[in-house]
């Protein structure tokens, strides 16, 4: 199954790139881990139980058209497929390792686009590993794909646009939350102020105000929350809250956490793509040319994995990357794509407007990124912030040595739940910048491959 372009991720960026590339007739394969297209933002947009209702909002419904065009584009969609490695070949193409639950195999592609989107920033608070605690994104996925909502006292806590979006969706569904706990630090408003003009001209303003009204009329909102603790014996039973200097407990069976989203970096980093720390967004982002090409020639990144911008920006970036790849394949016809390119560039600029304001406003407070010593930061290996701090004090050199000493980042999630925390803990304690500290070194396979899948790989190689 060799192809001209292999895209990883069937969200807005991946679909837009695939559609664009197919217009020129090149062969496109789109591999995606999920059961259906849409990514997380347009999850289940084709066949989900709520696609006919307006409960999820107009933004969600707009993904439907994209999914329809994608389905008709002739791109080959491989669902339930994980990409565990990308390697540059000597002939300037790529070998890509794909795995389904049954087997792993290798394919060749001339160009590769990573469009794996975002993941939620780690929310290491005391008790975040208790069953009953999950991310707001996870709860929204249940809503989109199965029309499932929490029952029993439920608390939504954290900061960021998704918090209001989900709270409003629950309000429309008649689900009343026990509380919405807003951890946005007071001082952020002041820091966001210089970016206000851009925000006032962005589509976020009206949408945000409308959401806020919906949320405030349906749920109890508690602001200025400065500490959170999930409490329970082997199961969540309540949340201890510090807000405006008062400490109190709210009983809950479900706690939904959110501190914004950050680019998924594992596949790109393991493929050798250079990344840069963004102090504004407190995350590593790939170093990219304007057209989306990474520091690995022929390997492109688009969508939220290129830098958080939301669905519209992702679609525009996907389109631009698709066009850039066509330019490489057929430079002579580049001029014929100029109108499309200009339009996508304008759309990207429009959808990024107002983003700087949101980044500053929703910047998570330090205590929610670098917790107290007794809090677990590596969920896979039960490593606490204190374990890490003690070893830093004793001279541990960086996240990679920390991994060897504590196993933090060595479990099946391969640092996805602790990577940023580790970098920030090091930076804080040693006075280096997060860029100097760097991220845990990531290597293929970026997802665990089972013995069974490996056997499939061996079989395939024998046949070849």
């Amino acid at each position, binding site marked *: 199954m060799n192809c001209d372009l292999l895209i990883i991720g069937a969200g807005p960026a991946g679909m837009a790139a695939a559609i664009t590339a197919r217009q020129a007739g090149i062969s496109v394969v789109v591999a995606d881990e*999920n059961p259906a297209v849409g990514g997380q933002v347009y999850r*289940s947009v084709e066949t989900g*139980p709520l696609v006919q209702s307006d409960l999820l909002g107009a933004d969600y419904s707009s993904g439907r058209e994209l999914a329809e065009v994608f389905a008709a584009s002739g791109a080959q969609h491989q669902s339930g497929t994980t990409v565990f490695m990308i390697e540059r070949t000597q002939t300037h193409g790529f070998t890509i390792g794909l795995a389904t639950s049954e087997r792993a195999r290798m394919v060749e592609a001339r160009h590769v686009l990573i469009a794996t989107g975002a993941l939620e920033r780690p929310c290491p608070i005391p008790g*975040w590993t208790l069953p009953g605690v999950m991310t707001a*994104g*996870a709860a929204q996925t249940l809503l989109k794909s199965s029309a499932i909502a929490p029952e029993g006292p439920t608390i939504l806590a954290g900061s960021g646009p998704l918090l209001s979006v989900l709270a409003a969706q629950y309000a429309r569904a008649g689900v009343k939350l026990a509380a919405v706990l807003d951890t946005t630090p007071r001082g952020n408003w002041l820091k966001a102020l210089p970016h206000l003009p851009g925000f006032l001209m962005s589509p976020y303003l009206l949408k945000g105000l409308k959401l806020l009204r919906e949320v405030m009329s349906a749920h109890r909102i508690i602001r200025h929350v400065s500490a959170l603790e999930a409490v329970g014996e082997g199961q969540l039973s309540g949340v201890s809250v510090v807000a405006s200097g008062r400490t109190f407990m709210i009983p809950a069976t479900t706690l939904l956490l959110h501190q914004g989203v950050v680019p998924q970096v594992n596949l790109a980093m393991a493929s050798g793509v250079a990344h840069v720390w963004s102090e504004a967004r407190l995350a590593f982002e790939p170093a990219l040319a304007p057209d989306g090409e990474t520091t690995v020639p022929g390997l492109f990144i688009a969508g939220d994995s290129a830098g958080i911008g939301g669905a519209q920006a992702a679609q525009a970036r996907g389109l631009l990357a698709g066009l850039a790849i066509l330019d490489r394949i057929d430079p002579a016809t580049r001029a014929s794509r100029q109108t499309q390119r200009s339009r996508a560039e304008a759309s990207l600029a429009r959808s990024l407007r107002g983003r700087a304001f949101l980044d500053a406003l929703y910047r998570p407070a330090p205590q929610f990124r670098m917790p107290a010593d007794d809090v677990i930061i590596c969920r896979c290996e039960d490593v606490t912030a204190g374990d890490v701090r003690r070893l830093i004090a004793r001279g541990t050199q960086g996240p990679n040595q920390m991994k060897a000493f504590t196993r933090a980042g060595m479990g099946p999630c391969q640092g996805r739940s602790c990577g940023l925390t580790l970098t920030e803990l090091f930076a804080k304690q040693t006075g280096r910048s997060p860029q100097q500290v760097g991220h845990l070194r990531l290597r293929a396979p970026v997802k665990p491959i089972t*013995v069974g899948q490996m056997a499939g*790989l061996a079989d395939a190689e024998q046949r070849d």
Partner: protein
Amino acid sequence: MFRRLLEPSRQVTIFVNGQALIAAVGDTVAAALLLTGNTRFRHTAKSNSPRGPYCGMGVCFDCLVTINGEPNRQACLALVQEGMEIMTGAAAPKLAAYKRA
């Protein structure tokens, strides 16, 4: 605890720890289990503490269950299928269960 907002249009029967259960076509295994009130999917190797789905999108590996005899499957990525047999409560994945390529 979770509930459905809509009655599912198409149903399948799955078996969770030997017990028959109705789920909807399109449910992930994680969704079907959460609807039964089960939030404890597995236990960790180090502290034997219970864990359940956290990220819901294949990132955290805290939702691991055994599906049709195959251990360490991510319940949030697998869709239910007629007759599927799911076991929860397994001990954590020992890293030996994974072979590195």
